[in-house]
Every structure is written in C-alpha cells, then in structure tokens.
C-alpha cells in the first residue's frame, strides 16, 4: 500500500542523507521525496511516499524515529489528509495536436505556463494520482520532458505536525 510519511528533520548537514540512507540500507522503497525548510529555519519538512505492507511501514516509521535528527513524523495516510504534487510537463504541440493538448490541459485544470510555436509547457497541481491521470490522457501526444515535485501533504482538520 502507498503511504505518505511527513517528517520534521533537524536542518543539519548530513541529516537528509541519514533518512535516505536508511531506505537503501534496509531495502525500503522511496517513490518520491520532497524537502524544504519550514517557517522555522532550523527544521526541514520531508515528505516521503513509499510502498509496503503494514509490517514494513511499521518498521520504516520506527527506524525513521530512531534517527537522532528526526524530530517528529506522521504517516499522513493513517487519517484523512491533503496531498499535492506539482507537475511541469513539456508537450509537443503542432497541427491538430495543438488544440487537443490545450483541451486536455483545461479538463485537468492545468495551466499553460510557456509556449513556443511547437510546444506547450503545462503546469498542473493535484494528487499524484491526478498527475498520473493527466500524463496518461496525453498518451496520443509526444511528451518531451516531465518534472514532478513529489507529493507533499498535511493532515486535514486541526491535526498539526509541529514541535
């Protein structure tokens, strides 16, 4: 099952490598990883999406908690949550395809953020599943480049991940 784990990490040199190293060391998967400082510059927030059964996820969470630089973490998928990912995609847009690409982007509420005579760059945000769906919908066109941010997220309601 796919899980989204959000981590508050000490913003220290080497801290990120401890988290990433854990995944390779213990043979866990990382599907995506995002990281940036929070409002508190001494803390970074990481979001990792991973796949595993309950036993594996339990081990991942326990081992992440053991890392001294990990201040706090939460498995967002345990409760209701908001998940967003950003996609920038360059698509060939010539002839009849030019209008079709624009139409598909509109359906997914994507924005064309850059244009040349032969291509569009489209920006789309949403759940990772939605971005997958958009890329699939562009199947008939020529995709030139894909840049995805990886999922980030927060819990719904008053649940807060902070120190």
């Amino acid at each position, binding site marked *: 099952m796919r899980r989204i784990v959000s981590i508050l990490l*000490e913003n220290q*040199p*080497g801290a990120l*490598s*401890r988290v990433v*190293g854990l995944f390779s*060391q213990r043979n866990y998967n990382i599907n995506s990883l995002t990281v940036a400082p929070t409002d508190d510059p001494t803390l970074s927030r990481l979001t990792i999406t991973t796949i595993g059964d309950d*036993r594996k996820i*339990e*081990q991942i969470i*326990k*081992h992440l*908690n*053991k890392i*001294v*630089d*990990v*201040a*706090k973490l939460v498995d967002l998928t345990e409760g209701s949550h908001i998940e967003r990912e950003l996609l920038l995609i360059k698509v060939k847009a010539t002839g009849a395809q030019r209008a079709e690409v624009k139409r598909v982007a509109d359906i997914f509420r994507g924005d064309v953020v850059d244009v040349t005579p032969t291509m569009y760059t489209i920006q789309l945000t949403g759940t990772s599943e939605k971005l997958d769906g958009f890329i699939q919908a562009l199947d008939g066109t020529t995709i030139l480049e894909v840049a995805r941010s990886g999922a980030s997220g927060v819990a719904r309601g008053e649940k807060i991940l902070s*120190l």
Partner: protein
Amino acid sequence: MLSGGDMLIRALHDEGVDLIFGYPGGAVLHIYDAIFNQDKVDHVLVRHEQAATHAADGYARATGRPGVVLVTSGPGATNAITGIATAYMDSIPMVVISGQVTRDSIGLDAFQETDMIGVSRPVVKHSFMVQKAEDIPMVVKQAFHIATSGRPGPVVIDIPKDVTDPGETFPYEYPETAKIRSYSPPTKGHSGQIKKAVEILMNAKKPIIYSGGGVVMGDGAELLTRLAQKLGYPVTNTLMGLGAYPATDKQFVGMLGMHGTYEANMSMNDADVILAIGARFDDRVTNSDVSKFCPDATILHVDIDPAAISKTVTAHVPIVGPVVPVLEEMLEQVNASKVQIDEEALAAWWKKIDHWRERDSLAVTPAEGEVIKPQQVIQALYKVTNGDAYITSDVGQHQMFAAQYYHFDKPRRWINSGGLGTMGFGLPAAVGVQLAFPDAIVACVTGEGSIQMNIQELATCNQCALPIKIVNLNNEALGMVKQWQDMQYGGRHSHSTYADSLPDFVALAESYGHVGIRIEKLSELEEKMKEAFAIKDKLVFIDVCVDPNEHVYPMAIKGGAMSEMFLSKTERT
C-alpha cells in the same frame, strides 16, 4: 582560553573519560599534542585502528562505561569502521573521534581525506562533523549522551584539523546537560503493558525466560535473576546474554539458538509463554524461518528499541523500555499479584525439561590417545580460572565452545562479537578489558585463524605490560568454515586450511616479548594451563593443538524449527 585540541581533551576529562585508544596521524597531530601536554586522560597506542575500536569496545562491555577511540583521517578512519560496525551490531556505547582534513580542503580529494560521516553512517547511532572549535564541548556532551542512553551505540565525531589549531583559543565551558530536542529515549515501560505481561506470565503452564545482551548492557542481570527465581521458571540466554543469569544455577537451561543446548531449544519450541527481554529474535536464534518459530508461544517482548519489537517475530505483548525499570515494575507486580502460579503444571514442565537435559547435549567424547578436544580446553580453562575470568573471544568454533563450556555466572564477563561476528576482535578486546581491570584474569579464547587478524596487538600488550592469557585452539584450519563445508559442501575444504603456512606461535609470542607455551597432549593440558595462568605478570600465548576434525554441536538444522538440531555427526532430532 583553550585551543580546539585542548578543549577536546578537557571535555573528555570532564565527561569522566580517563583512557582512550588510538593511533596518531596528520589530521590529529594537534590533538595528540594536547594529549602530550596533560596527564588526566591516558592514551593507549594500538598497532592498527581496528584494534583501537575493539579495545574500546572490550573496555565498554566489561565496565559499562563508553569506550573512546581517536584515529586520524582517511585510512585511520576507514580502518576503524569494522570496529564501529561491531559495536553498532551489539549496541555498545562508544565515541570515535576521527581527524579530518582542514575545512577548506574538504571535498577536494585532499591527502588522507575520506568522507567519514558518509562512510560510517550505516554503522553509527549518530555522528557529528565539528564545524567550529566553540562547538566542541557541546558536541562531546551530546555524543556521550547519545552513545550511552537508550539503545547504546557508537557515535562518531569528525574534526577537521584546523578546528584543533593550537594557535587559536576560545573560552571553554563544559555543558551540564546535552540538549537534543529530537532525541528522547524511553525511560520506563508502559505500566498497562507490564501488567498484561505479568498476568500472562503467571498464568503460563510452560514458560521460559529468554534474555539477551540488553540485560547485560542495561545492568539488569540482578533483577532478572530475582524475577526468574521468584517465578521458578527456566531461563535461557542468548550468546550476547550469557552471564545475565548464573549459568551454574539449576534454572538455567543453557544458551539457545544455532549452537544452543538441546534442552534450551526444545524448551523454547514447546513453551506456551516466552518472556523475551533485551533480546532481538536474531536469525541465529530463530533459525531463519520464523513461521516455524515456537508455534505455541505467546511472546512477551521487552526491549528499549521499538524497532526491535515485531521486527522478525511478532510480539503479542510489546513493552518498550529500559530493562531495569521494567524488571523492577514486573517484580513489584509479581509480588503483588493474586494469581497463583500453577505449581503442578510447572513441576510437569520441569520434568519435561529435565528429560531433555538427560540427553546431555554438551557431553564431550574424549578422542583417542593424547588428542585434545577443543571442548576439553575450555573445560580446563574454566577449572584453572575457577570460572571467574573475563573471557574475550574471536569468532568461529572456539567462540561457540567458549560460550557452551565456560559457565558464566556474572554479567560482563563474556566479551564477544555476537552480531557482526568479527574475527580479530578477541585480542584487542582483551587489551581493553585488562586495562579496565588490571588485576583481573583476562583470557582471550581464539583460533589460529582469528588471532592472525589482529596479531600485531601483541606489541600493544608488551608496551602496556598486559598479562593477558591467549588460549589458541589451534586446529590448523578455519574450523567453522570447514564444519559448514563438511556438512553442506560435501567436505570440499575450499580455502579453509593452511596447515603448512602457520607461524610458530610460541616463537612469535616470544619475539614480541611474551611467554609462549605449546600444548600437544591431553595428559599435559591441565598442568600446562595452570602453569600459564600462574604467570601473573606476563602475557602467555597458550597454543593448544586440538582435534582438527571436531564440529560444534548441537547445531540447528537450516530452515527448521528450534527443535530441529544435529546433535552429533551422526544424530539429529
């Protein structure tokens, strides 16, 4: 005002460190100069950085205090890795200070530069790269706090050379506490869980207590013994847990696992309740296929590390906490409990266990004539030292024989590399133990394979005048490798023998300034061992020629249940 180098040594002293193990080199010369200029922190010069870590490790295991290591950058640091990994696998508190190239050369492939933080990352509990000299006191404080609290482990402090520059000085103040907001190890167990566990434990019909290295390292041996004796339940120890419960007590059924006793493994397999404490259901205990592991047992698992719980075997009642407060609370609850232990069931259980005991799985069949069995050497060692020595060991058959035949009655007396299985551990570990306890009898049980992996430490022993007794079970082969080749590879001894190229260990020991004794005949075994141990002021290398064809038994059958064992070359369960 102190320089970075002076601050480091001063901070070690303020932390209570009086002995460090190390080897100098370019990046730590400022620190070595700081050591030269004071007399509070003593330094032992080893002959290889790996030995420094093992010596610090042996010191830590025997005393319970963290071992401290100082090595230079590059090869000094990488040589220390095996010892750090050894300590990590066995949860030994250790602080390793490594030199680093100057801050402005980091990343430029400077001479003797290695990314020590990166190289050591998978085998440390935590690591620090010191960015500026003013940080040294707090980094040292935090490093010791992390190394010694929670589940202990090695911590690396990597210090660029210019940070320790004697030309720059700073105000020094040693912090009283280490403030780490993201680190808070458990301090007690969950009372509700303990209550639940005690109830199950007291209602058990066929219980067993399975205790591991955590009880030794957590100083819980006395409490464990009290709890076990109060309940009257059988106790088995892991390889790492030997000494946590007195081996000569009637409730002790021996070590469990791959080379555990028949009665220990049968009791585990048949148990209805297992109290696992400070043990981690290692594959050398569970025998790889956990689905066959103790099918009828309710598992109560006490461990300080939540990640050790339900990692391989699912715990029915998990308790996360340090052994001492958990055992105290368990004892209180057992004393206060209204549950009556089913004495009849317990008597029947003991009857069954005694029946297994009658199999006498550790019986030694003497060889013909004057040939010495390796087990007989350990039996003689036990007798000659009155069972009261510190025994360090290397890795292989001799390690298992020592674990099986030296009956440890006290914790911290059995010093071996259990998790990583590091050959070459024994002699340097003995250096650490003997320095911690100068008047104690310290024996290193080893083999001619392992001892050659850190034989250079004979020089350290000479320099420090350490009267260690090395008991070399010389079977002229890598015994455990050979045993597996006999059992699983049709007796094809691929690169496990070297009889024609062994050194003369007696002459070798003598060339390092020690005493060498060779024992070849069974009839002279005990007498010559006595002679060796009577030499109080010198290291004695006792090279014992043993039966090269001996195997370690019992031996678990791969992929089987705990009840499935080879009991000799011709018998199995």
